[in-house]
């Protein structure tokens, strides 16, 4: 019998290969077959301005990574305005990704500790929780992308007003799991520690902190994805660099939505976003598994 792990890999690869082949075929059908011969629904799909052929996507990757336009050849090969504009502005894919990843890391580095601290205070101190929890819920209800213009009025157009929504999004995400991790701590642990004379710093360092750490780490890991989404959002709305800027070119307002985006660039951007997001999440998973190896859950199935 084949192992389920192998079956997973095989089926996954087959599914990716089949869809990529199918897509390549569909997106190239206009070049291979005379459009007149196709049924109408099919003919509508073969539009390179909507579904860029796979090879064009590869060319866009090459142009965006190397920062050079491919040499002209034939009538199909000329790059779109979007790509050449990005190349002219010296925007590269890796540069944009780096800018975005740095913003995400900043958001987690600043918003994470703030959220953890708040979660601990609310989770541990019942009185503080009573007073502050409604305020937290109110605060959390404001979508991070909604107040970006307001922050800009205070701070001007710069880096700070891009970072604040990311920090805020991470903060509000981290608070709740930390809060539950601390509050729902099994009472026996605390009682046992107390009855053995532990209190104050010892109780915190040896009981509460370790017991809450799986919740905190999974919160931080989840906040990475939230920060990633927020980063792309703020960059699309107001960024001057980063992957969100690469997608729509600086401000959703002024934007390329009218000038015409190149779907190849968007698809490249999305693949890069997913890859970077996956990599960050995998790194976070490895770290948190290492740290909380003792809390590994028994699989339920």
């Amino acid at each position, binding site marked *: 019998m084949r192992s389920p792990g192998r079956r997973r890999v095989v089926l996954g690869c087959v599914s990716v290969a089949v869809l990529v082949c199918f897509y390549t075929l569909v997106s190239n059908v206009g070049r291979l077959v005379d459009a007149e011969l196709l049924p109408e629904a099919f003919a509508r799909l073969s539009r390179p301005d909507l579904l860029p052929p796979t090879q064009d996507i590869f060319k866009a990757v090459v142009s965006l990574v190397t920062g050079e336009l491919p040499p002209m050849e034939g009538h199909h090969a000329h790059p779109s305005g979007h790509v050449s504009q990005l190349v002219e502005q010296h925007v590269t894919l890796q540069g944009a990704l780096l800018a975005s990843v740095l913003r995400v890391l900043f958001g987690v580095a600043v918003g994470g500790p703030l959220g953890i601290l708040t979660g601990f205070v609310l989770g541990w101190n019942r009185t503080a929780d*009573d007073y502050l929890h409604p305020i937290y819920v109110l605060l959390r209800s404001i979508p991070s992308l909604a107040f970006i213009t307001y922050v800009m009025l205070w701070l001007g157009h710069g880096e700070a007003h891009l970072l604040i929504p990311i920090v805020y999004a991470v903060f509000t995400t981290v608070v709740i799991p930390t809060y539950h991790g601390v509050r729902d701590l099994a009472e026996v642990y605390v009682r046992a520690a107390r009855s053995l004379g532990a209190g104050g710093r010892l109780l915190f360092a040896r009981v509460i902190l370790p017991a809450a750490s799986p919740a905190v780490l999974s919160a931080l890991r989840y906040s990475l994805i939230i920060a990633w989404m927020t980063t792309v959002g703020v960059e699309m709305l107001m960024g001057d660099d980063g992957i969100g800027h690469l997608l729509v070119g600086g401000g959703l307002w002024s934007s390329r939505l009218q000038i015409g985006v190149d779907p190849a660039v968007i698809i490249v951007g999305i693949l890069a*976003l997913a890859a970077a997001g996956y990599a960050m999440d995998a790194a976070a998973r490895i770290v948190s598994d290492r740290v909380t190896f003792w809390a590994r859950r028994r699989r339920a199935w």
Partner: protein
Amino acid sequence: MVAALRSIRVRRGLVGLLALLALYGLAAQIASGRLPTRVSLAKHDIEGVELLPTYSSLVEEGVFLVQAGILLEGAAVSTGRVLAGLLLGSVVGIVLGLAMGWAAGLEYALDPWVVLLRFTPALALLPLYVLWFGLGEAAKVGLIATAVAVVTLQGAYQGVRGIPGVYWDAAAALAAPRSLVLRRIVLPSALPQILASLRIAIALGWVTVIAAELIKPSMPSLGYLLALAGAYPRVPTIVIALATIALLVLVSDGLTLAAYRWVTRWMRRRHA
């Protein structure tokens, strides 16, 4: 109501909120006349901006926005979009999630695509959706639906995978037909997880709609109201729009939480 006020938690919560509101009013009163009224936007400076609007100007602006029909209509239109996206996205997400949790083959085949979508911020799809679905309603609702579907899919999937193996074994041993397994085992055990993911999805839907409404913006909509108020800039409108969105998020979250509590009422709650 009176009974609720007797609870110390409720009273303390109210005190906290009232203190926040009072502090804001105080800060706005002190700040009016002291804060700079000149702000610099991306390309130019603008005079006469009230960075921290006082309650009186907020009330004035609020009355104007309500009377002009901008606020309520906008709230209705935006809520409609979120709901449409939520409905479409959660149906797709839940069905796919349940199917993936049930059938391993399907899970393995779809897994790469789910991972791809999971780590792609839904907003990044916005330009693509505009190209594919045009500048109309379909792109906006589609964007929200995508964001919602990804989250609810994971919830439904984890709900099914979390079902203890004994249940499956028992059903198999008793030769229960698939429809019975679905009705009596899969749905009831996955429902709490699905509703929990729906709560996240609603919050995400509200974040997404703000940006989605910048696609060929048109007026009754909260996203465009916010953007327009930011472009002028008109801070009282921004604050009121933010408060309205926060209120709508709170209400929708409260409703989902109530549904969650109702569905999981058979689970014994442990009070910490």
